[in-house]
C-alpha cells in the first residue's frame, strides 16, 4: 500500500486509511435523513448547554446527569441501528454484552477503587498544601468560560497522558488492550484494562475552584462531543465542528490497523490540541485493531499489561545480565522514541 504523506509521515502504508475531508463518506438517504444526521451533533450540544445553564439547583445535580447519560446512550444506540457508518462495525448481542460489562465494571468496582487512589484524593491533598484562595477569581468568570476552561484543561491532560501511552512501553502495555477493539460502538470507550482507565481518568482540571454548575456544563460538553469518538453512526459533521472537536472520523484513524495512523488524534474532546501539537490527521478508517484484527477477550484484557510486562522485563534482564545468549529475545517495540 502506498499511503498518503501527511506532514513528514506516511499514513496508510500498512492498512487502508482515507485521508482528507474531501474523500470521506457522506450520509446517504432522503432530505430528512440528511438534515437529521447533519445537525444532530450541534443541536444536541447546544441543547445540553442550555439545559445545564438554566436548570434550577435542585435539578442540576449529579444524579440527573447519570439519568440523562443512560437515556442518551440508548438514543445513540438507536442512531447506530438506523444509520450505521460501516456494516462491519454493527453491534451484535455478544459485543453489546461485552461492552456493557466494561461500562458496568467502571461504575462499580473501579469507582470504589478510584475513591481511594484516584485524582480526587490527590487534588484534595494538593489543595490542602497550598492556599488556593488566590484562584477564587476563577469562580467569578462567566459560567461558559469556566466550563470551556475546565473541559480544555482536562482534555490537555488527557492528550499528553494518551500521547505518552503511545510512546513509552510500560504505559503502552496498559493502553494496548483498548487498541484491540475491531469496531467502534457507543460503549467502546470503556473497553480496556482497568489500569489504563484509571490513568486516563487522572484529571488536572480539579485544582481550581469552579462553580458546581460550571462542572456540570463541562460534563455536558464532554457528553455531547467526545461521546462520538466511538460511535458507528455516519454523520455529515459540519466543518467548524471537526476543526475544533474530536470526531469518530479522527478517532477511527487513531484506531486503524495502520501503525503511523494510530500515532495521531490523541485528544478526547478538543482536536485543536492535536492541531497545535502537530498530531492531527483528518480522515477516517474502517479496518481497525491490532495483530491483523485479533479480538481480545475480557480475560486477556484484564491480564495483558501484567503478562506482557513480566515477559518483557524478563527478556530485558536476560539480555542485560545474561551475557546476551540466555533468555528470549526482546519483543520488537511498537513505539519508537520520538
Amino acid at each position: 500500500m502506498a499511503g498518503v504523506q501527511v506532514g513528514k509521515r506516511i499514513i496508510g502504508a500498512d492498512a487502508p486509511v482515507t485521508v482528507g475531508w474531501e474523500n470521506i463518506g457522506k450520509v446517504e438517504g432522503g432530505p430528512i435523513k440528511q438534515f437529521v444526521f447533519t445537525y444532530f451533533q450541534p443541536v444536541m450540544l447546544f441543547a445540553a448547554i442550555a439545559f445545564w445553564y438554566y436548570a434550577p439547583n435542585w435539578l442540576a445535580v449529579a444524579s440527573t446527569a447519570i439519568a440523562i447519560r443512560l437515556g442518551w446512550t440508548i438514543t445513540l444506540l438507536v442512531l447506530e441501528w438506523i444509520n450505521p457508518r460501516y456494516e462491519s462495525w454493527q453491534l451484535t448481542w455478544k459485543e453489546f454484552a461485552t461492552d456493557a460489562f466494561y461500562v458496568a465494571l467502571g461504575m462499580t468496582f473501579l469507582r470504589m477503587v478510584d475513591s481511594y487512589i484516584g485524582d480526587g484524593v490527590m487534588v484534595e491533598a494538593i489543595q490542602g498544601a497550598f492556599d488556593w484562595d488566590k484562584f477564587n477569581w476563577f469562580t467569578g468568570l462567566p459560567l461558559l468560560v469556566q466550563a470551556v476552561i475546565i473541559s480544555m484543561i482536562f482534555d490537555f491532560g488527557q492528550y499528553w497522558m494518551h500521547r505518552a501511552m503511545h510512546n513509552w512501553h510500560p504505559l503502552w502495555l496498559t493502553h494496548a488492550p483498548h487498541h484491540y477493539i475491531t469496531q467502534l460502538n457507543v460503549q467502546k470507550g470503556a473497553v480496556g484494562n482497568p489500569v489504563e482507565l484509571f490513568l486516563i481518568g487522572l484529571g488536572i482540571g480539579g485544582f481550581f475552584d469552579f462553580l458546581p454548575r460550571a462542572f456540570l456544563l463541562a460534563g455536558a460538553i464532554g457528553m455531547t462531543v467526545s461521546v462520538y469518538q466511538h460511535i458507528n453512526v455516519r454523520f455529515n459533521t459540519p466543518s467548524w465542528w471537526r476543526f475544533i472537536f474530536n470526531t469518530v472520523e479522527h478517532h477511527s484513524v487513531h484506531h486503524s490497523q495502520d501503525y503511523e495512523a494510530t500515532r495521531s488524534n490523541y485528544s478526547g474532546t478538543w482536536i485543536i490540541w492535536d492541531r497545535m501539537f502537530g498530531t492531527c490527521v483528518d480522515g477516517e478508517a474502517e479496518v481497525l485493531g491490532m495483530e491483523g484484527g485479533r479480538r481480545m477477550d475480557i480475560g486477556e484484557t484484564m491480564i495483558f499489561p501484567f503478562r506482557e510486562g513480566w515477559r518483557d522485563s524478563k527478556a530485558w534482564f536476560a539480555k542485560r545480565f545474561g551475557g546476551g545468549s540466555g533468555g528470549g529475545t526482546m519483543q520488537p517495540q511498537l513505539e519508537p522514541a520520538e
Partner: protein
Amino acid sequence: MTGLSLPLIDNIWRVRGEVPIDPAMSAAEAFARIDPLLRTPGTALSDDGGVLTYTKRNPQAQDKLATFTRGRMWIEQAGAGAVMRFDLFSHALLLCFLTPLLFLAFAQMAIAINEWEAAGAEASEKAEKKDEMKPPAVKKLNPVDEFLGAPAPEDPSKKKKDKKKDEGRHSPDEGYVLAGIFAAIYLVGRWLEPFLVRRRLRAALAGPPPAT
C-alpha cells in the same frame, strides 16, 4: 459433548434445535451449504461420521456464530421430511448468566466497606470536630450570567448536613441495578441468539449451492 448429563440446567448455556431441509439433499451437500458460515478465522471443523463438529477460539466480532464457541450439527429423517439438528454450546451465554452474581457481590462489598469505615469513623469523630472552621463564602455569578438568567449558586452554609456522610462512601445501588440489567441482557441473548442461528442456517440451506 461432556460426559455429564445436565438435562435442565444446561439449557442456560446450551442451545438445541432444528431447521427443516429438503429431504432430497444429501448430508454432504447440506454441510457444504453451511460451510461458509463456519469457515471463519479461529474455527476448527471436523466431519465425523455424518456429524459436523466445530470449535471456535476467540472468534471475531462479526463472526455470525461468535456467541456459540462449540457445536455439532447432523441430519435426521423426520417423518416424510428431513431436518438438520444442532446442539450448540456458548461460553458467552454462560458468563452473561453469571454476571449478575458478580455485580451483586460488588454491591455487598460496598455495604461491607461502608460498615467497616463507619466503625472506624465513630472512633475518630471527636478529633474531627475542630475541623469545622469558618463557613465557606457564598459564591456569586458573573454579571453576564445574572443577565442571562442562570440560577444563582446555593449558599453552602444553608446546606443541610452532608447526607452522603451518613450513608457511607459507596453506594450498592449501581451493583443492584447492573445485576438486573445483565439478567435482562442474558434473557434477550438466550432468545435472540438461537433465533438468529436458526434464521442463518435456514437461509444458508435454502440458498444456491456453493460453487465448488
